[in-house]
């Protein structure tokens, strides 16, 4: 039934659905995992990189984490080429705002501008939607640290912690049980790695980008992409804790012999 109404992005189905937009959202569910968490003193994000092979030249800048402005960054899940266009839109919008108002753009306004651009491709004919989901992290004077998730339909929502891409559901359930709003960036980084450990097939320091956005006391923003050695060390701790927790659970699960 859907076949007849899914060819064109600008056609509603009789049930009132836009199938092309839904397919675009589906495309990202197959993409590499990304996770974001709001900490009391910053925002933490992680993204799964594409498979590293011997012949692949490592990229000069991250392929998952992009700086949008001094106070905002984004993690990408989906088609990188599509993401590049939108990242550029976001960067220009941020600078345009700064040019006009002399202040950094409030994070939600930046997210909304990107999302409004995405929405165009779900309403005006001829072109497919962007196959990208973003996690936006930012800080502004109005609402402090913020985390937003946006999808190809142009919808966005604010989150305390969220997961997208492959196995996002299991990642999300870990976040639901383990995340607390009182966690600082250190704790959130550990939790992000724990989530990636569960959702990714093989987690290693080379296969993810781990990022943190923090604000110093003097007001300057710091974007940190953790170097591989640091990630490797943290990963060891997380994996050890995970194994210990799993062993405990197994031990508890063994029935008491009468």
């Amino acid at each position, binding site marked *: 039934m859907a076949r007849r109404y899914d060819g064109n992005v600008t056609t509603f189905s009789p049930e009132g659905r836009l199938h092309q937009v839904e397919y675009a959202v589906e495309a990202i569910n197959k993409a590499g995992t990304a996770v974001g968490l709001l900490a009391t003193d910053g925002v933490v994000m992680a993204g799964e990189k594409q498979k590293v092979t011997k012949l692949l030249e490592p990229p000069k800048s991250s392929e998952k984490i992009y700086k949008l402005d001094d106070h905002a960054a984004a993690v990408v899940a989906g088609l990188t080429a599509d993401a590049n266009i939108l990242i550029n839109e976001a960067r220009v919008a941020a600078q345009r705002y700064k040019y006009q108002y002399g*202040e950094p753009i409030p994070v939600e306004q930046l997210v909304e501008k990107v999302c409004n651009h995405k929405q165009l491709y779900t309403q005006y004919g001829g072109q497919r939607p962007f196959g990208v989901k973003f996690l936006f992290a930012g800080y502004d004077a109005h609402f402090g640290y913020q985390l937003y998730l946006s999808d190809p339909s142009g919808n966005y929502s604010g989150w305390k912690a969220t997961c997208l891409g492959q196995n996002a559901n299991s990642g999300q359930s870990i976040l639901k049980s383990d995340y607390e709003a009182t966690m600082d960036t250190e704790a959130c980084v550990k939790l992000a790695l724990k989530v990636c450990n569960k959702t990714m097939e093989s987690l290693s320091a080379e296969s993810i980008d781990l990022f943190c956005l923090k604000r110093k006391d003097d007001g300057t923003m710091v974007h940190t992409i953790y170097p591989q050695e640091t990630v490797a060390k943290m990963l060891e701790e997380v994996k050890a804790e995970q194994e210990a927790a799993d062993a405990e659970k197994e031990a508890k699960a063994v029935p008491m012999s009468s």
Partner: protein
Amino acid sequence: RRAAPRRRATGRPARPVRGAAARSAEMECTLGIIGDGYTLIAADRNAARSIVCFKKDEDKVAVLDSSKLMGSSGSQADTVCFTEYVQKNMALYEITNGLKLSTPAAASFIRNELARALRKGPYQTNLLLGGYDGADGASLYYLDYMASSNKVNYGCHGYCSNFVLSIMDREWTPGMTEAQGLDLLKKCIDEIQVRFLAHMPLFSVKIVDKDGVRVLEQPK
């Protein structure tokens, strides 16, 4: 028949501004003072052109929103038009984004608009933007029709500034109470009424502080 005015490729207005229209901004007076947690803006109440005074109860201090005031002087078409344009843009920003623009951001926006119009058809209006933002306190911006913008502690537009700024230089101190600020304003107005050529009996006075905008009586 007169030839139609030539349109220049550079975008300068076809008829250069001259005469009384250009000078009207100088014959008006706008004053601004920063005090302890407030900004005071005052302006004369004459609406005049050349040798004629149309009315003596014109209010030239506009309320941009609940935390910003803007005193404007210059040809009425531009002051009223531009002031309303700024007011409505502030309102649009607030409704669209659920946030109020801070005073520095508003000054940046206003200056940008003046700069954009400068090489097409300038707004012939001089402005004093005063506001109060919670954490950052009171601020005052001096903007003129050439799209300059400066953050100041006190300011004055018009020929009156020749008299008023000397008084403000001497008498202004940081952290003046509202009463002290009004006292300083009175000194300035008294000097204008004694020494300035144009007759300016009435001034509109408005103040903005943490509680918003209030209309004050002209200090007697």
